[in-house]
């Protein structure tokens, strides 16, 4: 009796969520929240993780005052940032000045709509998922460029210009690396890309591309050793030099959300996304999202490790690396991949 009633109720719920417009909208909002809330918490704790990991690497303690092991430090920083005064410089373009941080932050959130956290488990499991990711990540440059221009400050402007040139340059090699992965998959759907790595993760056969993609991801997120847009030794703080309080906070959070996003892209393209390392029993018991999170955490650790290890590149070295090393090499690798797959008859045909 009870079971039938429960069953009927669950079918009512299904009817409401999947077949009425209101239910559909509510379901979408819930799905978005299920991604965004953990993401924001992850961003807050990534700042703490960065400080702790770098402290350990430099034999310091890092933040350890607020809460046990400093776990409340993220909230202390957030409260400090929100209670400060927002200063808009005179001569700045008011609307664009405030638009830029919102743009950076919301773009970093927007991209997560297509990231699958389990088998087909994404807010939007679209056919052109990887193109969507590429599109969103190529828009990230606008937040920085607009911030640099709207601040009406020389340092900010120079930072913005540097960043624009850098991000456009490294997008080219990112695009070519993605193409060589897509050649092996035969689909633009992110879930298909992960499923194609059932037998072997792409980081094994395409190891050089994995490295190139990771380095390009560092440049794309303006992280050390490519953090020239905010090079404090010559540009004070680069494009966000005029920002304060919450508007600075949004840039800050956006940068970290972008780091998580890029780590997610590395995990999906090369580390098998939500797949366990081996398809055998004890590993397959752990649910997919946990695997994805573990891989993202690994990539983030490498991001921080790189920052703690390498000195900053010179700008001409950065441009040379992007255009004269990565671009020809990834192009060559793409052609070689296509040739190899065609010669061995493994070119995926008509998957979608």
């Amino acid at each position, binding site marked *: 009796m009870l079971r039938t009633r429960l069953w009927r109720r669950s079918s009512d719920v299904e009817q409401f969520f999947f077949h009425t417009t209101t239910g559909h909208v509510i379901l979408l909002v819930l799905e978005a929240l299920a991604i965004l809330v953990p993401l924001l918490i992850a961003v807050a704790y990534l700042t703490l993780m960065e400080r702790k990991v770098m402290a350990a690497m430099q034999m310091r303690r890092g933040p350890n005052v607020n809460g046990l092991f400093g776990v409340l430090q993220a909230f202390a920083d957030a409260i400090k940032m929100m209670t400060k005064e927002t200063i808009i410089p005179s001569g700045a373009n008011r609307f664009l000045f405030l638009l830029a941080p919102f743009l950076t932050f919301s773009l970093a959130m927007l991209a997560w709509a297509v990231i699958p956290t389990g088998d087909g488990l994404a807010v939007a499991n679209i056919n052109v998922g990887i193109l969507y990711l590429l599109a969103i990540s190529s828009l990230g440059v606008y937040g920085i460029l*607009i911030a640099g*221009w709207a601040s009406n400050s020389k340092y900010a*402007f120079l930072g913005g210009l540097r960043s624009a040139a850098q991000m456009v340059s490294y997008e080219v090699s990112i695009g070519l690396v993605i193409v060589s992965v897509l050649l092996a998959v035969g689909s633009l759907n992110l879930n298909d890309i992960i499923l194609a790595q059932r037998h072997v993760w792409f980081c094994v056969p395409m190891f050089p591309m994995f490295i190139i993609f990771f380095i390009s991801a560092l440049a794309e997120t303006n992280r050390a050793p490519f953090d020239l847009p905010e090079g404090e030794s010559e540009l004070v703080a680069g494009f966000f030099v005029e920002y304060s309080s919450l508007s600075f906070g949004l840039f800050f959070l956006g940068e970290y959300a972008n780091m998580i996003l890029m780590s997610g892209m590395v995990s999906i393209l090369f580390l098998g996304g939500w797949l366990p390392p081996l398809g055998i029993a004890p590993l397959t018991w752990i649910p997919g999202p946990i695997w994805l999170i573990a891989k993202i955490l690994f990539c983030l650790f490498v991001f921080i490790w790189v920052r703690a290890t390498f000195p900053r590149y010179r700008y001409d070295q950065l441009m040379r690396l992007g255009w004269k090393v990565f671009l020809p090499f990834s192009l060559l690798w793409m052609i070689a991949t296509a040739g190899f797959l065609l010669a061995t008859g493994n070119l995926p045909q*008509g998957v979608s």
Partner: protein
Amino acid sequence: MMIQLVFYVFAAVLIASSAMVIFAKNPVHSVLFLILGFFNAAGLFLLAGAEFLAMILVIVYVGAVAVLFLFVVMMLDIDFARMREGLQRYAPLGAAVGGVLFAELAMAAAHWASSPVMPEPITGGLGQPGGPMTNTAALGTLLYTHYILLFQACGLVLLVAMIGAITLTLREKPTGRRQVIGKQHERMRADTLEMLTLPLGFGIDANGGFLRPAKGYYDTAVPGSYGVPAAPEPPREEVRKVDGDAP
């Protein structure tokens, strides 16, 4: 119903932002309105089911082309008073160009009609005969079979344009301090740094002064760049000593 509403929103914003591209006083605002226009056009593509084109529009035009526009326009030093100066003089010319364009558009619109029969949707990939196709696969199939020659010709035109742009803008300026990266990477620690253990109370001077780096800027610089003669100079002596108060 919902789709129509979304269509009208996208279309209205597209037309409004296109108009603002022309009417905005600040060129940076014009470019930003152009980007808004691209976005709405991508939205229209999405509504039409052309998801691949929508994404490519955003990646290529918004992500690359418009960035370069913005890059250039931001660096312009605009004097708004001077921009207004020639308005009277150039107005007739501008109106004439606009008139010709409008007439052409009107003629095209008058004689254009959509085909009475809907074209058959492309089905059947290379490996899957008869099945439905995503529009990425459909575009690829068309481009690389029926239109392969035109497609290759487009590539050639772009290649020529690219080479032209590079030859027009590449200048070997002697003012920069450019260095040969390979030579720079060959520098070893011993070339630039010397560790000395000095007894207490003694300075470096007592040991004969500093050792200059054996390979400095002049050794790694591109011949012809700032301060370096165009012809390769004779090799310098390995270690140069700066005069200290040596005994």
